[in-house]
């Protein structure tokens, strides 16, 4: 128990004492996972909408693949991305291995099926005739799409949170493709593993707590946006 207390004390000392390295590690975590989440939204939302709103041969297979992708083990993603990005690999000429860009690529592969899968379900929970009704009252196709997105915004925000939560907390892929290089690719999760391996358990706990606090803050803001509306009940008379 004293260990956990020491960890909490260390966490506060690091954050408020302005430890430059911890701040830069935290910043890099946000930058990498934030960018990865944005790219995942750009890839995952159109894919989810496409799968929800159209019917084509092979659609069932595509949906099954997306659903499988939602549970992709990060280490497996890390392994395959490494093999491709190693200098001896097919994409070695890009010189991306052990760089933040490599970590973003791996995290996008982890997060975009999550976003696509949740977008798909959120669109399928809408009234199937809603699109037709909107066209009926004179909406153009882009307007229909926009209105449907607005209608599905609560589950779409949940997709955003799940995607970000998946990558900010992920360690296996970041370790393999990033290499946990000090000042370049060391993020909160890989630094936690390193410090635990070095026996600096209080520092490891501190880094873990910073990660939790970060995750909580971001989800708190998003939840706040998501939960602004409540289901209205008739007022008791």
């Amino acid at each position, binding site marked *: 128990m004293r260990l956990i207390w020491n960890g909490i004390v260390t966490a506060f000392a690091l954050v408020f004492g302005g430890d430059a390295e911890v701040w830069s590690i935290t910043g890099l975590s946000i930058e990498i996972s934030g960018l990865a989440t944005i790219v995942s939204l750009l*890839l995952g939302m159109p894919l989810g909408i496409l799968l929800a709103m159209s019917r084509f041969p092979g659609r069932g297979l595509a949906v099954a693949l997306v659903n499988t992708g939602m549970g992709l083990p990060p280490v497996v993603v890390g392994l395959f991305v490494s093999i491709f990005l190693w200098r001896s690999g097919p994409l070695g000429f890009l010189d991306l291995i052990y760089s933040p860009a490599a970590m973003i*690529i791996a995290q996008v592969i982890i997060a975009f099926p999550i976003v696509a899968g949740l977008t798909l379900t959120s669109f399928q929970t809408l009234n199937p005739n809603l699109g037709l009704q909107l066209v009926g009252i004179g909406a153009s196709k882009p307007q229909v799409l926009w209105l449907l997105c607005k209608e599905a915004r609560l589950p779409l925000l949940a997709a955003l949170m799940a995607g970000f939560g998946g990558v900010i907390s992920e360690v296996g892929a970041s370790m393999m493709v990033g290499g946990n*290089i000090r000042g370049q690719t060391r993020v909160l999760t890989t630094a936690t593993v390193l410090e635990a*391996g070095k026996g600096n358990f209080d520092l490891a706990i501190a880094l873990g707590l910073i990660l939790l606090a970060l995750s909580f803050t971001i989800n708190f803001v998003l939840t706040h946006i998501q939960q602004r509306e409540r289901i209205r009940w008739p007022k008791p008379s």
Partner: protein
Amino acid sequence: MKALRCVALLFLSAFMVFALALRVRGAKAPAKTLILSTTTSTQDSGLLDVLVPIFEKQTGYSVKTVSVGTGQALALAAKGDADVALVHAPELEKQYVTQGKLLNRRLVMYNDFIIVGPKEDPAGIKSAVKAVEAVKRIAGRSAPFVSRGDNSGTNVLEKTLWKRAGIEPKGSWYIESGQGMGSTLSIANEKNAYTLSDRATYLAFTGKLNLVVLLEGDGALFNIYSVMEVNPANGSRINTVGGNAFADFMVAPATQEAIKNFGVEKFGRSLFVPAARMREADLN
């Protein structure tokens, strides 16, 4: 039509992935980088945190340190995925040098391995003196032993000990952790088991373990670190000049002095002994 537009959107997004990735890379990657593949103990002990910044300042290179088990570190260098290797498994290293994959193997430093275990010493290895005799007693009593099991330098030496003892370790007493030295020490601690550790990592865990040093000082427990250059033929993208510069740096007199002084302040003793001017035969 709608599907077509969506596909176009997907492609646009994919293009943005690359644009973003390249932007981040452009912002972060300095002009001259080199990849050092090394073992976990040089990193976990904090030695590289001291040496690498000196090298970067002297030469202007940016070093990407990849610290993995020695087996993997050597394999990476042999595939041309690293520019220089700093590792500690002489037998394995010599195989790569003989194959011509790695070149110009030079001694950098040494320390020693120790066998640690519970204070009660159920297998009575304290009186064994020789490491081979100690592992014989551990196996004879089926006393729990935690192995790294990851083909690291420590694991390679441990396997040599079993081989020399004529024992194939098997059974529920032989636990393979598959993890780094730090985690393996923690596991041995929780299981009241014996394990083989490098001294630097064990010292870094001072005060966090109930395990005590039960056997040390046997010549078989020497832990020799060497630096090797990578054969440019291993791949087309190897930074030979940078890799060789790092190898030269590791054996330079000023670096050797820094190695000697490392850890004295924190642990009251050196963690590594510089060995650039020694011959391997003198060490064994």
